[in-house]
């Protein structure tokens, strides 16, 4: 069963008088519960593709179907809720809200949806990501690796069907990056989620079920 169907998707940007074809006719199927790695040189359109799937951009052409819903048919408000409920984002740079503690950061997406957290699930996630003793600390007091773990926990808390990770290990050193990637894989397996990850490291890409290689906005 394919949870994400990307069908001849194009995304062009206009900068000044130049047309940049960030994603140019990409088709992609992602099976439910699998780990897909997207690799490619910088500027090859990886992030744009991920953002398209995450509903952050609207495609210039083509269709993206997630969970039987075509994203372009959603309104701005619906897209917001789509992001909130269906998608978990993990970014390259630490994207935690610096004014909130780790616990609050993790619970933030739930709070936005006016939901209560399931304490058991919360403990499971934080336990798996080894955040138990750091819950009441502020992000800036933690190492980059731990911050990324918190970001992963935040992405997981809503039990999203898809986890989108944009070089989650990009700004980490080699050791930490392997740890974080391992955790990401482990937790998604544990919670039966679909993981789509952009990475530079072939080592991480090897962990995946499917590797998509992009070049100049096309799959090669």
């Amino acid at each position: 069963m394919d949870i994400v169907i990307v069908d001849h998707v194009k995304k062009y940007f206009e900068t000044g008088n130049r047309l940049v074809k960030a994603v140019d006719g990409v088709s992609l199927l992602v099976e439910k519960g699998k780990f897909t790695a997207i690799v490619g040189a910088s500027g090859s359109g990886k992030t744009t593709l991920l953002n398209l799937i995450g509903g952050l951009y609207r495609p210039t052409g083509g269709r993206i179907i997630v969970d039987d819903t075509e994203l372009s048919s959603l309104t701005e408000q619906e897209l917001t809720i789509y992001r909130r409920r269906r998608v978990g984002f993990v970014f390259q740079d630490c994207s935690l809200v610096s004014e909130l503690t780790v616990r609050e950061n993790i619970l933030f997406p739930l709070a936005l949806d006016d939901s209560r957290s399931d304490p058991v699930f919360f403990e499971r996630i934080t336990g798996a990501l080894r955040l138990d003793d750091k819950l009441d600390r502020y992000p800036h007091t933690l190492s980059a690796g731990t911050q990324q773990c918190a970001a992963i926990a935040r992405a997981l808390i809503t039990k999203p069907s898809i986890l989108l990770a944009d070089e989650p290990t990009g700004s980490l050193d080699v050791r930490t990056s392997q740890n974080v990637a391992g955790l990401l894989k482990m937790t998604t397996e544990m919670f039966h989620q679909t993981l789509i990850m952009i990475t530079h490291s072939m080592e991480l890409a090897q962990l995946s079920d499917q590797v998509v290689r992009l070049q100049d906005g096309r799959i090669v």
Partner: protein
Amino acid sequence: MQEMLNTLARRSFAACRVRNLIAVLAIALCSTLFTSITAIGIGTLQSITLMMQEQKMSRSDGDFRYMSKEQFEMMKGSDLIREAGLRMPVGFLTNARLHNIEFDVMDETQAELTFCMPVHGEVPRRENEVVASDRALHDLGVEPQVGARITVAFTAHGTDYTFPMVVSGWYEALNDQLSVMWTGISFRDANPDIFRNTYRMDHEMAGTYWSDILAVSRGGLQEKMNELSRVIGGDPEDMGSPDYLPAIVNAVTNPSPDPQLVAMGAVFVALFIFCGYLLIYNVFDISVMQEIRRFGLYRTIGMSRSQVKGLMNRQALWLSLMGIPAGLIVGFVIGKLALPLIMDTFSTEYQNIRADVTPSPVIFVSAALLTALTVIISTRKPVRKAADTPPIDAFRYVEGTARGRKSRRSADLARIPRLAWSNLGRNRRRSAFIVISLMLCIVLMNCSGTAAESMDIEKQTAYMIRTDFAVVNAVSTSNMKGFVHRTEALKPQTVKDISSQPGVVGGAPVYKNTAEDDNVTFDFGHKFAEATFVNNHSGLVFGSDEEGRSFGLGKDGRMICNVYGMEESAIARMDLREGIMDAHTLYEKMEEGEGVLAGVQVNRTDMSLHEVFDMVQVGEVITVYKDGLPFMELPVLAKAAINGDDQEIGFTCNGVIQIGGDSPHLYLPSSVYKELYDDPAVYKYAFDVEEGYQEDMAAFLDNYRENVDSDINYLSSQAAVANAEEERDMILFVGRLMGIIFGIAGILNLINTVITSIVIRRHEFATMQSIGMTGRQLTGMMMAESVYYAAGACLCGLLMAAVLNLTLVKEILDSQWQFTFHFTLVPALLAGTVMIPVSVLVPVLALRVFYKDSIVEQLRAAE
């Protein structure tokens, strides 16, 4: 959900203290502005109203007169009435010497409403107890103290009564001519004879019921009161009717709103809201921009637009909750302190004014509402901007770099200023706001400066007084009375005492006709309708013509005019315009009885003769009647433009409007005047003093008034100058206050922009530094940016100030007679010279505070 957003809002609020401080400051400044202005406005209104109420001796909404007991009860029970006092006038005391003492039966409500509650002692309870003013008691020859025994004598129903009374309490008189002595209802019950109601037969007031009332609502009060008067069986309009029951609205308490004033207020409010908008909009815009990456993150995670808006609005609310109360308090204090300064300018026109403002909720509520409105208006756009930014873009937001940046190789030396120049275009709107608010500061400073500079003090002084000193009876300077009666003439002893002072030169009395001189009348063939109304105070019947001019009429129904008797020296000082232009020749001719000098009021703006009052022409003959018989014929020999001093004193004309009204002012030599009038009253004693005696003379007169003759008041040329200067100071004060407020708004915007620049462009700076820009060059660049703003504002400001000065300001000033337009740009230049150093200082300090980490840290922080 709410909890989490609260936490988030609270923490991010706490995190950016400097920015919030600026925002709170902006809001506080705005609310300070509103509060002080409202406080000053309301305080002025309150003070003037209270003063006028005191002069009118009533703070009621209105009063009913000549009622019977039944009518009074009915009136009291009506829905319209919130409070009604009881007053039964008995009459004036016949045993009073100089002071007019009205003797009434009153209840406490009435006493309360008419300012005669005893301050010392108690209200009268027994039939032989009274409350009176200190002046009344002095006049009756006792010291004002509780328990003093006095005799009260009056006439009612044609019978003379005398009662021995005990003073149960007393109060300080508000008015030096008239005060009320009152006793309680038990006096009425003990003397039913006096209080027989015979008003319908003989118009005897004793026995009628009067009542000052407070109404439930003030809208359409006159109609409602008239209606009530009819309901209780009276006739509110026809004076001749036996049921005449006038319902009179207290115009002092219920002033009709002046549309011009309202419009001006609206313009000011709009201007202030605009000022607040300039300030607050920018602060919030910058806040949003600084936070835009954060909002992008929120949006990416799944925060909806309304949630972002909620977050922003919450912060705005907190900032307001901090800023507004602070502003309210500071503003009120400023208003309270500034009020006397502003009220001072009215002090020559209004006596014994008490400049004070109470912390009324109206001030605070309206100021707070205005500020809140401003905050709402100015945050709407930034909030929308925050909510509308698409998630990913905002997340990766970097403020747009200026477009069309051209590099010129030849500009190596000026590279850094050039770099700074190209940075200005990054946010046009913000740059515009900074420049506009700084510019408004300069323009307002300059306009007020120009107005102050153009204030023609000499012209004003010359209008107010021609000699060094002029002494008159104090009634003349009271706008509720005026010089009307012969008893108000200066006492010969007083004139003598003053003229015997050292340094007095050319002292001469000026005679003026009074209400008692109604046997001398004038006729020059002007047609008018007879007997249209009676002036309450002078008792003269007035006639009026088709143009709406009204004239005081004598016993024989002819005009009594305003007639002055003067010495030659005084006539010589007058401004002769037509006819015989040589004062000496004129005076000689007039002494021979060959004619008269007619005075015509001027258009103060251009000092030309005012056509409305220009009724007699040179050569026309005025027939003078005495006791109804032609006495002499006086051709008009010359016409003079008369000013305040020729008319009365200073700006007053309280007496003339009650005597001659709008009829011509006639000036005669003293000898002729004395021939014409049987008992000539000295209105004024005008004199110069030798150099160096001004202060001594002023001190003498103050002292004299204090200890010998409390009836006099005087004006000196020095006081006139001071009065004009006060007015100028107020213009300067208000103008500068507004200028400074806009200046502060501009500077705050500048500080904010510089800080934002530093915070947002940290990475850019760090990059520049890492490729070899020194700290000094960086500071130089920021300084150049900030100076460009200030310099731009100064240039625009100067230009605009010049243009405005030559157009709008000139127009306005030319229409006001007190001003003679005088072009100046000095205040603008001064403001500019303050602004530029400040603009240099701001980035230096800001860089020191906000940019102190190492380059590497800066680079990392910006990641």
